[in-house]
């Protein structure tokens, strides 16, 4: 479809250079000094072209994306290089010149739609704010156009959805409204900053399709920032890989996927290659029997959930957010006593509430959380954090405790020098390792891992998963692994439990669950996981319709 209704603006031909960044250097201020964030990156974007920017967190993707607008976040400064947008020097431009550009010629789509919409205003007013603020069209024309965009983005009830407030629609819908907001002034360039990272896979697919179609329809150029290679493969014409603020390589999408040149690029999807052979276990360590659970009196979240966890194996619980995965974990640990049903451990029923369990029962079930940051006392050193279960469960003191601490650190592949460090001095992966060591210190039978790798970059994820697998092999630990990431599931699990709206849809060996025939929901879930094939999304849409 050709570009239309662009307000008669001269849009230039497809293929003309729209954005040219040369040797851009950006500094960020933290810990009382300036650090390099971007160290001399070049970027050339043509009209109508979509460039994917990928890399792990801290690679400088968002910073570079925002710099393409001439914007630096508070605490950052663009130090060197040139940024030329459509013949205009953005580094030399003053604030009011830039503001004329923002929201009219360049638009931004942020990661967290829920946080990026002002809670105090209706969606329609926020959608057209920039369009009427820049006098691109009048209010009524902008509203009519927004309704059309809502329709094009497959939002339900496009005529009326705009009169709702942000908290009244779902995350996936908000993300599409934000795309409509970016598209409303018909910009030349849209910066998509991890727009689907916060969404469930099933929702992600819908949003990706909607975004891709609308960008194609209006021939808008885009920079698509993500850490997910499979996602960027669906969206981008060209992919640029960033690491430590430098370009690793850039190539056309197909070439990049088929033949990545750099080792780093190859390693980015190594986690997807990690695969554990499944192993059926018959000795049931923990068994959840017909559990119903609710928060408060009204909000019932688990309906007749029964799960068997074999000893020394990994059971992965998958499902989208709100499916009851974490609630199941809370029931097992006793944090949320169930309304009906029970949890059996080694054939015996566990007391429902945490306070009724014996110290030994508590010791045998340990938990590791998604946010290692908030799961550790920031004022305690690593040694103190790991000592706590040693003292509490095993009554260890003095030299014996010190010896055990060193052993535990060795197990998680960190040396004894970490003992005196504070959590704030550790990287994300190291923090998660400390949490693992703390769980191990109790010498548990079962460890419940609640999204433990979700907040980590792919390479770090791989390290943590390998560590967990090794520990399982050495100590025969049983894992209940809660995740929404199918790649992690294939990497670590023996059995899979699929949950949807508080019910268990399916439970079985990995091979059974991941092979057809699928129940409807499992099929939807599995087919929504992006693959590294650039045609995957196109094929999926064709298949589903």
């Amino acid at each position, binding site marked *: 479809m050709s570009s239309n209704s662009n307000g008669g603006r001269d849009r230039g031909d497809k293929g003309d250079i729209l954005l040219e960044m040369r040797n851009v250097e950006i500094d960020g201020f933290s810990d009382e000094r300036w650090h390099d964030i971007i160290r001399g990156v070049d970027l050339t974007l043509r009209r109508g072209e979509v460039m994917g920017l990928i890399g792990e967190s801290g690679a400088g993707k968002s910073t570079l994306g925002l710099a393409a607008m001439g*914007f630096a976040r508070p605490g950052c400064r663009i130090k060197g290089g040139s940024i030329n947008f459509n013949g205009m020097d953005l580094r030399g431009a003053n604030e009011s010149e830039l*503001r004329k550009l923002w929201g009219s010629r360049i638009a*931004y789509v*942020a990661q967290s739609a829920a946080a*990026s919409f*002002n809670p105090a205003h209706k969606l329609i007013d926020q959608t057209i704010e920039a369009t009427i603020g820049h006098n691109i069209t009048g209010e009524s024309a902008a509203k009519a156009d927004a309704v059309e965009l809502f329709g094009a983005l497959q939002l339900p009830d496009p005529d009326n959805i705009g009169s709702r*407030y942000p*908290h009244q629609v779902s995350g996936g819908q908000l993300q599409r409204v934000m795309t409509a907001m970016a598209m409303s002034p018909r910009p030349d360039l849209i910066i998509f900053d991890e727009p689907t990272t916060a969404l469930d896979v099933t929702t992600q697919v819908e949003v990706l399709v909607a975004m891709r179609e609308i960008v194609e329809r209006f021939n808008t150029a885009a920079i698509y920032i993500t850490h997910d290679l499979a996602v960027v493969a669906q969206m981008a014409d060209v992919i640029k890989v960033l690491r430590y603020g430098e370009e690793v390589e850039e190539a056309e999408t197909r070439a990049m996927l088929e033949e990545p040149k750099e080792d780093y690029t190859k390693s980015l999807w190594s986690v997807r290659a990690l695969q554990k052979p499944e192993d059926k276990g018959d000795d049931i360590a923990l068994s959840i029997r017909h559990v119903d659970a609710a928060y408060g009196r009204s909000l019932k979240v688990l309906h007749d959930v029964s799960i068997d966890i074999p000893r020394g194996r990994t059971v992965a619980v998958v499902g989208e957010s709100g499916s009851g995965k974490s609630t199941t974990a809370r029931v097992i640990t006793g944090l949320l006593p169930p309304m009906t049903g029970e949890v059996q451990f080694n054939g015996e029923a566990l007391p429902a509430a945490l306070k009724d369990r014996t110290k030994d029962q508590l010791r045998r079930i340990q938990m590791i959380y998604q946010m290692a940051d908030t799961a550790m006392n920031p004022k305690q050193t690593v040694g103190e954090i790991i000592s706590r279960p040693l003292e509490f469960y095993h009554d260890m003191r003095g030299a014996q405790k010190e010896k055990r601490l060193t052993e535990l650190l060795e197990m998680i592949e960190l040396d004894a020098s970490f003992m005196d460090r504070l959590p704030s001095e550790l990287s994300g992966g190291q923090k998660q390792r400390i949490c693992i060591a703390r769980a191990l210190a109790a010498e548990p039978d079962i460890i419940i891992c609640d999204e433990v790798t979700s907040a980590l970059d792919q390479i770090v994820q791989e390290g943590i998963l390998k560590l967990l697998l090794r520990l399982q092999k050495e100590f025969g630990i049983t894992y209940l692994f809660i995740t929404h990431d199918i790649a992690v599931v294939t990497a670590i699990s023996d059995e899979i439990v699929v949950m949807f709206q508080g019910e268990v849809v399916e439970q079985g060996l990995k091979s059974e669950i991941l092979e057809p025939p699928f129940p409807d929901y499992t099929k939807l879930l599995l087919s929504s996981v992006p693959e590294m094939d650039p045609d995957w999304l196109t094929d999926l849409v064709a298949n589903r319709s």
Partner: protein
Amino acid sequence: MHPILSTVLQRLGLGILTLFLVSIIIFSSIALLPGDFGEQVLGQSALPETVDAFRRELGLDKPAWLRYLDWIGAILQGDLGTSFSGRASSGNDSSRTVWELISPRLSNTLFLAGVTAIIAVPLSLFLGITAALKRNSIYDRAVNAVTLTTISFPEFFIAYMLIVLLAGGVIPGVALPTLANITESMPLGERLFKITLPVITMTLVIVAYMMRMTRAAIINLLASPYIEMAQLKGASKTRVILKHALPNAWAPIATVIAFNLAYLVVGVVVVEVVFVYPGVGQLMVDSVSSRDIPVAQACALFFAATYIILNLLADLIGIITNPRLLHPR
């Protein structure tokens, strides 16, 4: 029922309950005061019989719980009681109802508080918003430093400083009245002129809190992703603050405004004394020292009600400016 309505009714119920509990506290603490009206009026040399007769007339011989029930029952029927002073036993009966005593003072207090609020609230909002807009600028620092200085001094000190500066002829040609002894018969203009100094004093005392909270509430929101989004849509700084930050900042701002307005009504007795202003604060101090229990209790109850009502209002503002509560899913 709309959730807002039920929340409001709930808060209202809580407010009434609080007022009831406070009435018990007021009653008991005044009952704990040493001595009573009889001794106070008749003096130490009075015959015990005379004091007893006097007590009987005032009902002070009844047990405390009965006196409380009498008092609260009368209040529920709109009767604040009669002042102890000027009763028949002390000569001829010239006693007045509490309402007669308190109502002119009440209107004076509300007049002073109202005039101060009309000046101080918009001034603080303006200073707070502009300071947030130009944060870390010289303007911001100056506003912060000045307001911090004015709250750091006790209010009587500020009051006397103002008297020296603005009424003592230090600045030639400026001689504001140091006595704010207004009467009901004065025309509005004269009354306003008389209360200039107390109004300035109280404004200086309360602007700092409100201004700093406004500034902090807005700056706190400026780190939100939706503020960055608004910037990246090309909204001007003023628009970002007024349209995107302020609507989400009302709850904390309303709370601190309510607190300070309550102070204007309740806590100004020092200012009233300095400027000889006939307000409720003075009346209460006088009634406590003369053990005129009905008046003291009525004043205390009025102060408590002021606090509760203003805080209730702040809560309501917090609720209706929160779209999550106003427009549930």
